[in-house]
């Protein structure tokens, strides 16, 4: 299933500077695998050694945090927009 993935600045060195790429997969886990296939090295920046999304990385599907959905198992449909965003803080 083709989806769009927004790539944050720190990961663009893997995508030759491109800020949005296409990926294939039925859920976030398979999207990460697909990204790794096309952009080797990107997976270990998104996921830690146990395979979970890193603590300081947020992943959104159409603006919703996957931790409110089914995390890596969050299923996707064609045309979904995925954003990978480093955690930031300090608002108020």
């Amino acid at each position, binding site marked *: 299933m083709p989806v769009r993935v927004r790539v944050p600045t720190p990961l663009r060195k893997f995508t030759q500077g491109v800020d949005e790429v296409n990926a294939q997969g039925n859920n976030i886990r398979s999207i990460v695998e697909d990204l790794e296939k096309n952009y080797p090295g990107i997976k270990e920046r998104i996921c830690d050694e146990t395979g979970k999304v890193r603590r*300081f990385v947020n992943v959104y599907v159409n603006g919703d945090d996957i931790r409110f959905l089914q995390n890596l198992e969050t299923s996707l449909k064609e045309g979904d927009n995925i954003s990978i965003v480093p955690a930031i803080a300090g608002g108020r």
Partner: protein
Amino acid sequence: MSFVKGLQCRECGQDYPKQPLHVCETCFGPLEIVYDYDAIGKAISREKIAARDKNLWRYRELLPIDGEPQVGMYSGFTPLVKAHRLAEALGVKELYIKDDSVNHPSFSYKDRVVSVAISKAIEFGFDTVSCASTGNLANSVAAHAAKAGLNCYVFIPDGLEQGKIIGSAIYGPKTVAIKGNYDDVNRLCSEIGDKYGWAFVNVNLRPYYSEGAKTHAYEIAEQLGWKLPKHIVVASAGGTILPKLGKAFKELARVGLVQDTGCKIYSAQAAGCAPIINAFHKGTHLISPVKPNTIASSIAIGNPADGYYVVHAVKESGGWGDSVSDDEIVEGIKLLARTEGIFTEPAGGTEVAVTKKLIQKGRIPRDESIVISITGNGYKTLEAVAPSIEQPYTIKATLENFDQLYQDLNPLVSQAAGS
């Protein structure tokens, strides 16, 4: 002269030169400023600090700028109020209010972090400053940008209190309200920052910005006669200030300005948005995000990026944390106003209410020094307390009418005073 050596990832330890960068390119961990503390220890002294102007730059050796401060010449050095009447109400011996509700120029602790961030933005050569904010930060960025003559964009969630919206717009920035909550604003801003190359004070300048929070703690120590308090209570939202208070106290000891007598730090959150307290009470550092539902909009951050470090800093200090309901928050605001004459926003009400709860539970002892960090001003959030405030008595302009009202209000007094 600068005492900054560079940036370092808090997670994996990777070093970076000074630059506008906030996350580690390897592991996405947050970056921290690395100082040369030995050199600072030699350069700084109580006397030197005492001779400087009463603003946050009096601790400049411990702040991450290279040149002269560019903004914030009147920010910081807010009152440390000896709170006798609140102490009596809470049944404790020694209580202080560190009152950043009167910080210059925008009435919140944010004037500290923004002074540092914008000074740094100017050093880096940015011409546009920006922020993601629930209000106070936007107010402060807009005010400081105006003073510095910089372009300014502020991003806020829609549905904020009028006072906070107008309190930014008056300084002439472009104010953009995002349909959604603070976390939505935050996410969008990190993408905008990437794309437009602006100085987002709490995104790409975050390592510098967050250092400004330390000055709140430096001042407390100086105002206590270069001593650390035994206990300090502060609200947690994104999680910037609390770990920085702990860091600041340790730094003061390291550079020889105080003795490290230990200070327990307590985190306060609203029950309607308590991801950090939830994690703490579960005994984990892992923060599960929540959807905020509280009147305390300034601390309604459901996905606090520095939450992990708040839990860590509280534990390391031997402190604790708790959350309180919106009703308790309003009571906290009123209690502070009616005992100390200080009008704070719901974040401050949260701190007062949590302090009360922790004292009642025996978590904070009654006979040791306690500081409550009040970080924002109640005049910006009138909506939060308006429904529970007594309406004025309206009478005709005659003395008889007032005599009657006085007797109604004081039924035990047979004659009106003075009659």
